């Protein structure tokens, strides 16, 4: 299952990230690389069925503790 995302992200690096480097848009390149790394990490975790904690639960608990259910 993890092969497909690796292929997709490889294509993204070639066609989305590297052109930014060639255009000398360094800020755009680093922003794309950073966000891409986060995105790749998340999809890999999803592929290995790792449960990623959702921010929804702490926000819900905080709000219900203040305003009630």
């Amino acid at each position, binding site marked *: 299952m993890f092969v497909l995302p690796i292929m997709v992200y490889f294509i993204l690096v070639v066609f989305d990230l590297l052109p930014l480097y060639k255009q000398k848009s360094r800020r755009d390149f680093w922003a794309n690389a950073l*966000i891409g790394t986060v995105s790749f990490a998340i999809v890999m975790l999803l592929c290995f069925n790792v449960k990623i904690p959702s921010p929804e639960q702490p926000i819900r608990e905080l709000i219900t503790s203040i305003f009630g259910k």
Partner: protein
Amino acid sequence: MQKERITDKQAICLFISFIIGSTLILGIGGEAENDAWLATIAGIIMAVPMLLIYSRMLALFPGKGLFDILNITLGNLMGKVIALLYIMYVFHVGALVLRNFGEFINTVAMPETPIFVPLICMGFLSIIAVRLGIEVLGRTATYFLPIIFFILLIVQMLAIPQLNLNYLKPVLGNGLVPVLKSGFAAFSFPFAETVVFIGVYGSLKTQKSPSKVYFLGILISSIIVIITTIRNVGVLGNTLGNFYFPSYEAVSRINIGDSIERIEVTVATVFIYGVFIKSSICLLVACKGIGKVFRLKNYRSIVIQMGLIMVYFSYIVFDNCMEMKYWAFRVYPYYAFPFQVIIPIIIWVLAEAKNKKFYSTEKE
């Protein structure tokens, strides 16, 4: 790079599509049972002062978007902190909208298909739209909205035989409090969510008209939402709040002479269109925000990755449909309140104060 521009007409069409986006899927005012339509009206009345503030902010700084206004009014550091909060909020709204769509498809149409499939399909569509830019989104909304109006009109007319207007009575049978509570939920979802448009309306061609766009948009969209809510109450009665997707349920009951039935697919078309526009606008504003905060050359360079993260986030954000509904009507109004009301009011007050100063220094 040339700045993107949208006309007033395109802006109004985007606004209407944004409002009807996930509202028609989830419905509003379900907690008020058969007074849901009153709750909708209450929500609109609550939203009007905020829309005045949003449009005033845009009028004070013509041609500037939300993140420019934050930078001008709050300064570089504080402006960036609040901009990051807004990026998080807008990104979260986009993910929630995608999730609404995913749950809808997963519940009513394709229960055996993993929810990730509709999410990634819609996310992919949004990424393409945002990469093409606000002008293309505006033109898409202008072309599609008449079709959407036509579908809604035909469906409303076909629903007339199923309508039982006695379901609307007793008016205020449970008192005013449930109506006001549901009105507050309707205020934050979807009417005050239009705070997102401060990030888009910096691209308006005629800078005199943000208030006109806001008010024409809210007028038309509120008429659609109110009529749809009255139809839902008329067909479903006070069981309205028991359904995850009341509009879909109401339309599925249409049966004209045993020949015209199962027309809920038309409603699904409207949902898909609305969700596409809403998630695209959210993605666009989030990317523009990141572009401004990190001073990127072009926000398009991060659209694909942000769109993918939005899809993943929408996938992990809820475990099931019940959690989604609880969040949308019980938690979201309080979560969104600072972004929709408190911060805009503070920024507006500061903007009024700084406006003269800003333009006097620009003239110099």
